């Protein structure tokens, strides 16, 4: 808006300050992940922003191959929780995307399921904590507590609103001429959807799926309630990384936190063009 030199200086100073605040927590954790145990809780004059003796011990430790300086041994490694997080997030995304995409198409083209938009917004509105009692009872009844498929199912339901709304706005935006032409050619509507619409929507499907995956991957509360031991996800496992002898295992937690934080950040930056659409239920496009 303004183009004066003082304004430009002000702008850069403010933005750089904001970037510093943005990066400090992330950088601190990343640096902690490479610090040897002696530097974990260094304070005062010993506190360093960069590891003095960078090491990969923390990563080796959580995967159970090294216990050099650590007196404690893990009763299990981070490998299984990572698999649990991946499996439940991937299959949760699959459930949300399949149900959400087909329902969005059904509504956008054939006007079916008029109740869905509002019902799904409401689903998103309520705190998960307020509906978890029946969910825990039902999941126990179906034997889905502490299983990756049980987690996938609830993830699929919780993120269904996002998949549905995102795909609905994409379908609404899509010109129908091509579909109409194929119909005139004698294709059935199902065939048009499978063979023409879906392939055309591949970029939209990919960004929606990534968006939904980030949400599923980020969950903590649901996994905390629905898994107990075998299939705990990364955040729940992370909280268990402390011992009565050594207290918080800072470096180990940071290493795991780094592993957990990198995929969504990379994916999020990859789909930043669609983030606004996703976060506002398609009310706003960039």
């Amino acid at each position, binding site marked *: *808006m303004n183009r004066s030199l003082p304004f430009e200086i002000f702008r850069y100073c403010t933005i750089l300050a*904001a970037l510093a605040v943005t990066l400090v927590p992330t950088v601190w954790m990343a640096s902690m992940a490479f610090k040897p145990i002696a530097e974990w809780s260094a304070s*005062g004059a010993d*506190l360093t922003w960069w590891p003095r003796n960078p090491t990969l011990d923390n990563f080796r430790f959580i995967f159970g191959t090294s216990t050099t300086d650590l007196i404690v041994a893990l009763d299990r490694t981070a490998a299984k929780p990572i698999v649990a997080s991946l499996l439940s997030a991937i299959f949760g995304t699959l459930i949300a995307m399949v149900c959400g995409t087909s*329902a969005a198409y059904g509504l956008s083209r054939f006007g079916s399921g008029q109740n869905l938009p509002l019902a799904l917004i409401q689903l998103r509105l309520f705190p998960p904590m307020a509906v978890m009692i*029946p969910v825990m009872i039902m999941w126990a009844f179906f034997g889905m507590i502490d299983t990756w498929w049980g987690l996938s199912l609830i993830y699929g339901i919780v993120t269904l609103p996002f998949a549905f709304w995102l795909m609905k706005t994409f379908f609404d935006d899509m010109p129908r001429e091509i579909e109409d032409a194929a119909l005139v050619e004698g294709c*059935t509507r199902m065939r048009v959807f499978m063979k023409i619409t879906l392939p055309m929507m591949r970029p939209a499907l990919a960004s929606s799926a990534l968006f939904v995956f980030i949400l599923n991957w980020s969950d*903590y509360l649901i996994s905390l309630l629905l898994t107990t031991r075998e299939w705990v996800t990364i*955040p729940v496992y992370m909280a268990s990384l402390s011992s009565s002898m050594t207290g918080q295992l800072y470096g180990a937690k940071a290493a795991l936190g780094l592993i957990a934080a990198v995929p969504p950040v990379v994916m999020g930056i990859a789909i930043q063009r669609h983030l606004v659409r996703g976060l506002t239920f398609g009310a706003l496009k960039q």
Partner: protein
Amino acid sequence: MSAVATEKKLPIAASETSDTAPEARRLGLLLTLPAQVLVLFIALFPLLMQLYISMTDWSPLDGVGWWQAWQSWNSFANYTDLAVDGRFWSALGRTALIMAICVPVEFLLGLGLAILFIDDFVGKRLFYSIMLIPMMVVPAVAGYMFFMLFQSGGPINNILSTLTGTPITLAWLSSPTTALIAVMVADIWQWTPLMFLILLAGLVGVPEDQMRAATLLGASWAQRFRTIVLPKMKTIIIIALAIRVIENFKIFDTLYIMTGGGPGVATETISVYIYKVTQQDLIWGYVAAIALAILLVLSILVAFAIGRMNAARKERVA
């Protein structure tokens, strides 16, 4: 491209009406079926179950299935207990307090940053991407980051010591007021980017020719902002605020990892409170009553908000 766009705009009435051939209707039903089933599965049955359990003292430790919860039937005792449950009301108040501070701060910071990002400058794309990082960090991991930062020997105290020149070793997370500040700082850090992202998308949509005309007519920056930008941004601002209010009300992950609701109950929000009653006290009948009360209040608020929005839309049409 532009030809397609104009063509699409013309027959709006025709393209808005859906395909209603019988085959199309069948396919539409078929396609929406899975989503409908999931919604029913998660909404109707659990709600009825919750209503039933909320009128009993049932606990999973009772050794009887939930369907036999009538054995400990207490009609509305849970609800009357809730009305005088001091811990519940203070958790609710604390949630409201966090919301009342975090959401406006996030909004103002996000708006300020968004204004700085409107026009082009060197490094804009890179800065923009970095700015979005916090909201994509897993909230539980963000909670852990701030847990580390706020340790008494941690970097926050280190920075403050350097700035003030006196050694500060405040144990942020172990005293009630500072713990509350710490969890709010974490929330603001993580969600200001969301406000920034949404508001920037809105600001970019403000028509440039109007702005230029206003500038030529001698309108000051503040005038232009008030008379052109704000009216155009009204809906977007409401959406951004609504999203943050809703999500902030649910606040759990970061906060629980940082403080576990403590020290004592100093940072216990409504979600943390329900979680604790669920996991530690295990009186699920009571939890169901709390949950239903919250659902009811939220539903009323939502119905009210939607009613207001519809009324406003009708006014605009008339």
